[in-house]
């Protein structure tokens, strides 16, 4: 339900993987092949000399000495900024507001996710097959969706639970006036989840 940009994650991880793979291959080659080691040393030397030459081309008074030195600081800072942006793009999208309707000067109607959460919890509290319920609303560019998470008792029929929730959603649609896209997730208890096994007796 989160608004993580998954394509971006895949793209950046692919790029990072290729860079690391390439670096690894270069290090192996430099360690085992004499001509590769020579190429490695020459390239590094070339970069160092070029950097020294560049610093002299655009001089600045002490203590900065050169514009290219400033660029040498700006580039890692830019990289740090982009990394921070990548970090910040993970997750997000949870909203306390499930629906909102504005009627001009007549006012605005806002439905809180808490209202639906309480209603769902109340409706399922008598169900022995459901151990716990959590309801949240998530916002994306495509609209707001409802996330209902049920913890099922061990051995409970997922079909029956799904039907129960579907009926509940049908009632809610009639109650709220228009259907809200919903995701129903049926999980087992946290203890079995931690063990990481998909086996059950």
């Amino acid at each position, binding site marked *: *339900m989160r608004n*993580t940009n*998954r394509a971006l*994650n*895949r793209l*950046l*991880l*692919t790029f*990072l*993987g*290729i860079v*690391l*793979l390439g670096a*690894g291959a*270069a*290090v*192996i*080659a*430099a*360690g085992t092949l004499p001509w590769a*080691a020579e190429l*490695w*040393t020459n390239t590094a*030397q070339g970069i*160092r000399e070029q950097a020294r030459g560049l610093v002299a081309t655009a001089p600045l008074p002490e*203590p*900065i000495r050169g514009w290219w*030195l400033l660029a040498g*600081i700006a580039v*890692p*800072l830019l*990289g*740090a900024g982009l*990394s*921070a942006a*990548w*970090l910040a793009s*993970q*997750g997000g999208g949870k909203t306390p507001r499930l629906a909102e309707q504005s009627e001009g000067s007549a006012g605005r109607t806002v439905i809180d996710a808490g209202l639906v959460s309480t209603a769902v919890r109340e409706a399922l509290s008598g169900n022995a097959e459901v151990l716990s319920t959590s309801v949240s609303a998530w916002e994306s560019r*495509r609209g707001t*969706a409802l996330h209902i998470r049920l913890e*099922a008792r061990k*051995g*409970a*029929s*997922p079909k029956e639970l799904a039907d129960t929730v*579907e009926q509940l*959603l049908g009632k809610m649609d009639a109650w709220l006036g228009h*259907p809200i*896209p*919903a*995701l*129903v*997730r*049926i999980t087992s208890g946290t203890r079995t989840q931690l063990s990481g*096994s*998909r*086996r*059950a*007796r």
Partner: protein
Amino acid sequence: MSKDPMIRRLVRRETHSSRAIPSLVAASVLLVAFLWLALESVLWMLKDQPLLASPAQILRWLEGLPKTTIPAGMAAAGAGLALIGLLILGLALGRGRRHRRALESDRAAVVIDDDVIAAAVSGRVRLAAGLAPGQATTTVGGRSVRVQVRPTSGRRLEVESVRKAVDGELAAYGLDRPMMSGVQVLKEGVVGQ
């Protein structure tokens, strides 16, 4: 599978990994590395003491690396780097499927954990064959459901009825991916209660 693109998208996002954790780790490492490089550059420009190594020292160290390190060390370090790269590539390009699946529904995106299905199938088998808890074990894999039944000794087990119960239960779910089912009856039984 639902026709509604919004529901389809919800199912797809819930049953596949977002790669958020590898991304968080990679971005954090990159952030720290870039900040460190920037700091070292500033310190070097101000002719101050470097924290770990100045940019000039790093370049010189890199330059002499093939000469100062034994070939085996270089090969091992390179293999380590390449392995991490391959691991990240695998995470990025793999399918990233989680152990959940979608159940047929007209109204909502219903996603169930595989262990819930396993527990329900075990329960159904126990009911169909009159077994005690622990006599039926179900494993749900990517495309298969395997049921292991330990019969009660001295009592005949109707394998057909077990098979029918498993298939009936799976058919009722209307899962988005077809599942192969297999029933295995163990040779050793348990002492009846």
